[in-house]
């Protein structure tokens, strides 16, 4: 396997974790977050500092997960107070705040970022394998949640918080749970990204990246784990395979996003489900 292939597969794995975890917050529980990059970044910086300080892979993973979910819970508390559309704006603000804050902090490397982060010691193939294992575990967790009573309650909260309350479901607790789990996984992805690049700057976690993640969720099909996985893989590979897409990445992703919302709001998963039903009927 070439170094290029290893790096592409590693990035795909990280994007799958990010898109699937965002889908838990926005797809399962209906809380639109356009700042997932901030939680990804918080995890990456926590892991980088831990690696520089201790060199322990386990501690780095732990620090990333805890930092991602703590920031996520803080934003989750905001979600208890605001309507869904304001939450989208709040999370955009959180993403800008995160990048702006990190850029000005000398202890976080400022504009230059953190470089020379100690290697995980697994080598490129070992890192890739670890990333793929965590991606598989994330997919499995997502599938489990959507089948559990938690996923059932998430759907209710996402559709109508007031009606959910009349069935004894505390919308607030579930929204916090969605943010806590989803952002912990984003923190994990940040840690894996740090192992992979050994060099991070704030720009990798900006708002544009968050919008790309949301595009993966929407194009894959909001709420569908497999649809989102396929979209995350496809949209990561697309710019690599087609030169034009790489040059006009924002234009192509933005265009796809608009087309999907206009023509197939259920995303890939919705289109496939419709086709399947049509075939079964005929």
């Amino acid at each position, binding site marked *: 396997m070439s170094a290029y292939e290893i790096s592409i597969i590693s990035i795909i794995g990280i994007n799958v974790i990010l898109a699937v975890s965002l889908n838990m917050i926005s797809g399962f529980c209906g809380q639109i977050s356009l700042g997932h990059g901030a939680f990804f970044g918080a995890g990456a910086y926590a892991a980088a500092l831990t690696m520089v300080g201790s060199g322990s892979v386990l501690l780095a993973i732990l620090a990333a997960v805890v930092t991602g979910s703590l920031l996520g819970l803080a934003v989750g508390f905001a979600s208890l107070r605001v309507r869904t559309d304001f939450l989208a704006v709040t999370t955009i603000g959180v993403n800008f705040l995160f990048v702006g804050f990190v850029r000005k902090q000398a202890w976080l490397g400022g504009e230059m970022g953190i470089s020379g982060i100690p290697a995980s010691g697994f080598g490129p193939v070992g890192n890739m394998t670890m990333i793929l294992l965590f991606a598989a575990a994330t997919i499995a967790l997502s599938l489990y949640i959507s089948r559990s009573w*938690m996923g059932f309650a998430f759907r209710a909260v996402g*559709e109508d918080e007031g*009606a959910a*309350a009349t069935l*004894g*479901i*505390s*919308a607030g607790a579930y929204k*916090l749970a969605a943010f806590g789990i989803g952002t912990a996984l984003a923190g994990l992805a940040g840690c894996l990204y740090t192992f992979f690049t050994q060099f991070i700057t704030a720009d990798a976690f900006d708002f544009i990246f968050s919008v790309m993640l949301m595009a993966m969720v929407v194009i894959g099909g909001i709420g569908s784990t497999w649809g989102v996985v396929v979209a995350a893989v496809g949209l990561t590979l697309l710019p690599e395979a087609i030169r034009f897409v790489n040059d006009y990445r924002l234009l192509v992703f933005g265009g796809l996003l608009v087309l999907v919302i206009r023509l197939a709001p259920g995303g890939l998963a919705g289109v496939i489900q419709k086709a399947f039903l049509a075939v079964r009927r005929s």
Partner: protein
Amino acid sequence: MSAALQLDDVAIRFGGVQAVGGVSFAVEEGDFVGLIGPNGAGKTTLIKIIAGLLRPDKGRVQLSGVDVTTDGTASRVRQGLALTHQIVRPFREMTVLDNVTLGAGYRRTSSPFRALMHLDRRRESERAAEIIAQVGLAGTEKKLAGSLPLGQMKRLEVARALAVEPRVILLDEPLAGLNHAEASKQVEAIAAVHARGITVVLVEHNLEEVMRICRRLIVLNNGLVIGDGEPREVMADPIVHEAYVGGGMASHAEA
């Protein structure tokens, strides 16, 4: 024994308007109470206070002797209160069966952690199917809730309320917007709820039906209780009559 639902001196003010001004009453276990009053009497505000959607400025709300004044809706539901909305709010994207199953699993969903630990829904689905049949919706289980006609959606609201195994059920205008045939089916469903020993508090504009099915009437006007007792006696009270005539509802009061 403590009352199923008890309000002590409940009051709330919005700006300069005293929407509810010191309301007290107790509803005994198994009773069937109609809460009525002309428009603007404070019924909706009082329902929101009982449901936990509004916190009163003063006073106390108790369910079976437990003070729930500061609890939210979900917590009150888990303590035995169920409610239906005046404007139906089914989960439109879920099937009828899922709508009721979710209610039947209220113990499973009492905390996200507990919900995460459980996958099996068979028992809850079976209970849900029974309840759906009881309110006369058998055969609609697999339909999307959003595709039902209004009359069936209103009965689905009752089914969901029953699913949480309530001791007290608060029905907010369950007959509003229904034609005569649908309304009579809904009344049957409500009567069946009461027959199961559940305490019913009914808020309804349709005075004819209220007089027919309630054992006791509580009349609100300007945020205060102006009548309370056996329906015919209450409606014969000149103060109550005056409130309705003054409120422009003479025709209903005569009905």
